[in-house]
């Protein structure tokens, strides 16, 4: 046997016949290389969270072949992801998807990336080195008590790895028939004892095609660079990170539009005592978007946030904190519409407190509330109560009640269209205008969830939810006479409900084969309230939500350091604009050719030459089959 030649003392014979083998006989180096395929540690820790949380792990992303954030988010069964065109996505959870979906809060390393223009995310401006992601936590259901207004239907937390965990070099390059990208990252140590990494990344996405066959002019070319540095100190740490990017956004039949931005995050954590932790974070964010057909915006954000957790008397875990967010939003009317006032300073201030109270060893009650103040509607009150029963270490039954709001965005109050109005008697008459009386949309949500791991090899989770929405956004004919902002105004003319179930399961069928399944069934019902004259129902009244969607994901470890992964997914039909249901298949074959070289062949949307995911035919863009070759080198 080979080990006989080694200086390694007393190396036991590793017999493939399986008689005398024991893990304690492996050397430190061998232990270093045993691949763990279990659910991640975070998942185990979150197994007792009283919320509908799905974790997308780093390995899930690597194995899926996803090369952008929205594509990685497809791995979460509790999200609905619809690709609008080459660079734009509609992403939501628990319904109310739209071109400008606005009920989901997304954070990258604690930095909120929502746009105050419409309270949603512009996905074409967001990018992260996929290999540096530690995990993505997807929480469906309200998270307002911790995260504030806008976390109405869910929260996505994208968390990158500490610089300590990304030491050394990494280079990836992928090329396919629809897009190409390349990344270089290097991590090292600082003289002060900290660690850093720096990266540069370029992405080039081709235009998609419209259903009718012509080019849609929605491609993108992005350049991005950034860094992260972490210093561990006894009982705490400091993290500083930043990104800078610029993108050219293709425009149909016009010159490219320009998008650029930069951000900086500084975060200090400190363990004050065993029972007390402090976290303070400062975020600076700058975005410039010069898209003559949509937004021409310069946005600067300063966000300061502090949170203190402490344990009291062994039975109470109290978390409290506050935040202040300031945004300076400067807009120039686009060719199509504008905002009045064009420049606006926005302020959000918040205070929250939450107590997790262990009533018994197996019973936890969480009560919390947040008060958040905004420019438009003043103070909003965001309470929630959760009860979790843990009859054993591997199962959890939980329930929750929450109230949450979506505070008005600039679109809801300040929007004006067309950009150049008709002037009648010195009064501009807009076709559509923001509503001076538009109030926050509200949701009251009840949830009941169950998670269990009956055996080490499999686990599942199910969450029932019921949400009651009020004051949903509509467009109403103006009834206020000449003192209007538009012939039609944004108002709170609708209400609705969504009920459904989210389920997912994991099964380690064999040591080398894992299956993941996910299913969401929901019924979104909305109606116009009495007196509403909304005709289009295009704004807030949900009509773009599938009643069901499911996915099945298989991860196979093959001999000779190869892995084969595939995901079959189904999304039900959308009502208006009508989009047919579809099945699609994504697959990746990965070969770890050398210890530091991976080769991957990725196929996306393999079942059809193209399919639609969002928008009205025939003008809508379609998603086409793509094949990509990806090379990863670590040095």
């Amino acid at each position, binding site marked *: 046997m*080979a*080990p006989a*030649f*080694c*200086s*390694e*003392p*007393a*190396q036991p014979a*590793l*017999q*493939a016949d*399986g008689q005398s*083998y*024991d*893990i*304690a006989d*492996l*050397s*430190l*180096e*061998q*232990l*270093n*290389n*045993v*691949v*763990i*395929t*279990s*659910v*991640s540690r975070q998942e*185990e820790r979150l197994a007792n969270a009283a919320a509908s949380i799905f974790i997308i792990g780093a*390995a899930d992303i690597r194995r899926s072949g996803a090369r952008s954030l929205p594509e990685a988010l497809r791995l979460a069964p509790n999200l609905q992801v619809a690709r609008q065109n080459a660079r734009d996505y509609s992403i939501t959870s628990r319904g109310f998807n739209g071109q400008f979906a606005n009920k989901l809060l997304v954070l990258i390393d604690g930095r909120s990336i929502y746009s105050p223009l419409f309270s949603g995310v512009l996905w074409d401006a967001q990018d992260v080195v996929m290999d540096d992601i530690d995990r993505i936590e997807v929480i469906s259901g309200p998270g307002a008590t911790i995260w504030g207004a806008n976390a109405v239907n869910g929260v996505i937390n994208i968390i990158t790895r*500490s610089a*300590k*965990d990304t*030491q050394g070099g990494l280079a990836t390059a992928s090329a396919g028939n629809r897009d190409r990208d390349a990344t270089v990252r290097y991590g090292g140590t600082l003289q*002060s*004892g900290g660690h850093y990494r720096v990266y540069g990344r370029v992405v080039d996405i081709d235009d998609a095609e419209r259903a009718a066959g012509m080019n849609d002019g929605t491609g993108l070319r992005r350049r991005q660079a950034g860094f992260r540095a972490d210093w*561990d*100190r*006894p*009982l*705490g*740490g400091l993290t500083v990170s930043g990104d800078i990017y610029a993108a050219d956004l293709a425009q149909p039949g016009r010159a490219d539009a320009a998008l650029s931005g930069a951000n900086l995050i500084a975060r200090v954590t400190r*363990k004050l*005592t*065993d*029972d007390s932790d402090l976290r303070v974070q400062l975020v600076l964010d700058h975005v410039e978007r010069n898209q003559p057909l949509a937004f021409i915006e310069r946005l600067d954000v300063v966000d300061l946030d502090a949170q203190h957790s402490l344990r009291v008397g*062994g039975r109470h875990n109290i978390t409290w904190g506050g935040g202040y967010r300031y945004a300076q939003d400067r807009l120039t009317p686009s060719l199509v519409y504008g905002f009045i006032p064009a420049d606006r300073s926005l302020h959000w201030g918040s205070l929250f407190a939450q107590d997790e109270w262990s009533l018994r060893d197996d019973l936890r009650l969480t009560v919390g509330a947040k008060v958040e103040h905004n420019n438009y509607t003043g103070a909003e009150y965001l309470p929630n109560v959760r009860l979790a029963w843990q009859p054993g270490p591997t199962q959890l039954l939980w329930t929750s009640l929450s109230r949450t709001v979506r505070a008005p965005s600039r679109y809801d109050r300040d929007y004006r269209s067309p950009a150049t109005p008709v002037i009648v008697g010195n009064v501009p008459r807009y076709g559509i205008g923001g509503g001076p009386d538009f109030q926050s949309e509200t949701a009251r949500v009840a949830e009941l969830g169950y998670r269990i791991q009956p055996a*080490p*090899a499999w686990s599942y989770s199910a969450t029932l939810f019921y949400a009651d929405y009020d004051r949903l956004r509509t467009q109403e004919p103006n009834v206020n006479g000449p003192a209007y902002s538009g012939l039609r105004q944004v108002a709170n003319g609708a209400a609705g409900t969504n009920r459904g179930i989210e389920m997912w399961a994991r099964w*380690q069928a*064999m*040591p*080398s084969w894992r299956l993941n399944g996910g299913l969401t069934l929901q019924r979104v019902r909305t109606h116009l309230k009495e007196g509403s004259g909304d005709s289009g129902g295009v704004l807030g009244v949900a009509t773009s939500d599938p009643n069901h969607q499911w996915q099945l994901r298989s991860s196979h*470890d093959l*001999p000779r*350091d190869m892995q084969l992964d595939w995901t079959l997914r189904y999304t039900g039909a959308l009502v208006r604009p009508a989009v047919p249901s579809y099945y699609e298949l994504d697959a990746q074959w990965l070969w770890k050719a050398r210890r530091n070289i991976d080769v991957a062949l990725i196929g996306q949307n393999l079942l059809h030459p193209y399919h639609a995911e969002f928008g009205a035919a025939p003008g809508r863009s379609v998603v086409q089959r793509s094949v990509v070759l990806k090379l990863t080198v670590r040095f």
Partner: protein
Amino acid sequence: MTRYAKESVPKRQQPLRAACLSLVLLVLGAAGAGAGAGAVAAPQMQAGSALAGPNLERSVKAAYLFKFLGYVEFSGDPGAALNVGVMAADDVAAEVTRLTAGRTVNGRPVTVRTLRDGDPTTGLQMLFVGAGAERPVQTLRNAAQNGVLTVTDDENGLQQGAIINFRLVEDRIRFEVSLPAAERSNLKLSSRLLSVAYHVQKGN
């Protein structure tokens, strides 16, 4: 298993070691491929029980704990048992107990006992504090005063005062080491242990 060298391995042997290691891995890999699974071959060979997921992770941590004992100079009676305490990780405690049964480290037998929050750490040579421990900082501080080798399983384990901390890196269990913490406990770690560590925190 009594022949593990406490002292560091001379530098000139490193290339040979690396070569041997790759040879071992090659054999492991070939055995794994034969069994139809590359890197997860180890549990398959374990007396017919095809362990998956969490059990493997637990076993690897337990095996590390057992190995760590051989790379640290403990003071005291050279013939006495090495006492290992495990807190907030009963499954790991069970696995360490199973692994160490009938084995010795440098001629010393190993005993394992589970600790509850607040239990004294006197008389222990090593303490493993699981991720769910209630008061890790206080426990680790107390253990440091008693010269105990502390091992944690938490992202911030070293910050909390542990000497060794497990980390999950690219689907593998690795460990990081804090030299200042080892100094505080008056423990000398072998350079072989440090050379295998994923990361070594030096004094600053």
